[in-house]
């Protein structure tokens, strides 16, 4: 069980807490006596009291687990919060799909630096998830043209819809062709946002322009809901001439 959690959410859930949860939630009344020895003394006569007690214990353990899960979940998106990805582009969400992005051999992790020259071609993206589900991938730049003055926020680089789960964007429909990052000024964030579709979307209308794109609005239009995965990298303009 602990293993399952770790793989899906990429977090570390201490084994012992999981066991604690199951011990109390699903266990018969006797186990509760381990926690509260007094219980035995008080409830030998009253069945009702012991029933209530056991109910309370189960609730407590459930709440505890949920709290832990939430905190741990929050930890996994923390880089997105700190980097203001959650806020500028998407809203707070709970990742449920694992997405890995590779530019060549370079694995994209949140906040890593990728040179524009390495990102000329579309990356290799692999998703986990059910084959039955369809996903939409969006790559956007909220710092266009410059992070200190993002007048063109956001600048959309890539839209692919109808990606079957467990595969990659080549199996989907490319609504907007991929354009590599070309930051003119400053250090830009380039964000990959993955949504789970409720239904096949088919041919989606291209946005009128790449500039002034709004991911939230786009998601609302296609009824995509909250993202299921997000990853971002930083990129800045490379010096024109090689330093001697």
């Amino acid at each position, binding site marked *: 069980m602990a293993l399952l959690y770790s793989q899906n959410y990429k977090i570390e859930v201490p084994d012992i807490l999981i066991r604690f949860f199951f011990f109390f939630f699903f266990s018969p009344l006797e186990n509760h006596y381990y926690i509260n020895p007094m219980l035995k003394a008080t409830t030998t006569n009253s069945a009702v009291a012991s029933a209530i007690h056991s109910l309370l214990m189960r609730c407590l353990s459930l709440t505890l687990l949920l709290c832990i899960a939430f905190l741990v979940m929050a930890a996994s998106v*923390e880089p997105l919060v700190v*980097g*203001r990805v959650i806020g500028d582009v998407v809203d707070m969400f709970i990742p449920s799909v694992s997405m890995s992005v590779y530019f060549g051999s370079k694995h994209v*992790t*949140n906040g*890593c630096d990728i040179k524009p020259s390495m990102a000329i071609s579309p990356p290799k993206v692999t998703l986990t998830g059910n084959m039955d589900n369809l996903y939409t991938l969006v790559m956007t730049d909220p710092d266009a043209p410059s*992070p200190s003055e993002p007048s063109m926020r956001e600048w959309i680089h890539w839209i692919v819809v109808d990606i079957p789960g467990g595969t990659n964007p080549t199996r989907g429909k490319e609504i907007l062709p991929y354009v590599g990052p070309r930051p003119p000024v400053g*250090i830009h964030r380039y964000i990959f946002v993955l949504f789970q579709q409720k239904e096949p979307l088919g041919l989606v209308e291209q946005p009128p322009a790449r500039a002034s794109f709004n991911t939230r609005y786009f998601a609302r239009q296609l009824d995509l809901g909250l993202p299921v995965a997000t990853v971002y990298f930083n990129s800045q303009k490379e010096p024109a001439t090689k330093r001697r």
Partner: protein
Amino acid sequence: MGTHTMGAQGGGGDSNGKQSQLQPLVRQNSMYSLTLDEVQNQLGDLGKPLSSMNLDELLKNVWTVEAGQSLSMDNEGTAQASQAALQRQASLSLAEALSKKTVDEVWRDIQQNKINGEKKFRDRQPTLGEMTLEDFLVKAGVVAEASSNRKNTGTIAGVDSNIAAVAQFPSQGQWMQYPQAQYQHPPQSLMGIYMPGQGMAQPLHMGAGASLDVSFVDSQVALPSPLMGTVSDTQTPGRKRSTPEDMMERTVERRQKRMIKNRESAARSRARKQAYTNELENKVSRLEEENERLRKREELEKMLPCAPPPEPKYQLRRVASALF
């Protein structure tokens, strides 16, 4: 600029009341910017026409009127006291020879270029009447050579320097010193009117130390002499009355904007760094955990006879023996 001056002073010159002159004078409150004709008008009945006055008397009259006007803008007591001092000083500073001459004679000398005036003024003042008082005095040599101390520090010293400034009109280069002087003074908007780059203080405003500072700044005189014109012609036509204060405000604004932008970008860079660190930490913990798991699995596998015995390779077995 000259026309503007004339217009203002023309209006002001008609009425001799000091108070009514206050408003236009506030803008261009120096006699020196007036042409001699207007000066004559302003001075009213002097007894004899301007041109035949001695320079001494001319200056005295001018200063009397100016001091009188300055009364309305400054403390009366100090103005009067300083006025007396002025006149004394002025007469001292005038060259002996010059003071005896009449204005007419001086003018003739100027036209003949006997007195070393600046040549560039020649084209602009064809007749005596149209010359500005200031230029006239420059040419007449009333203006001594460049004064050393332009900034007023103490009271007496300030007065002296003011006198010197009155008695001498700085050459073109010296106009430039004033902008810096005035920028150093805190902007005072008592008058509210300033000419940028023309920091010629009204020398007749007297007061003790601090008020001298004030007066220097306050009484920014629009001295649109052609002298100044050469300096400020390029500036004045298009400019919308931007004062040194405005410029200071603008630079302050600019500085603040830059500071804010800088702070924002610093905050962004910190956030970037922190996000990267967070991600790295997460990655490390993930990897460590996976490592642990794998190790445990390995151990378990070692302990138990986990691996099923390898499938027997194809083994030859005797099934039956042949009889033969």
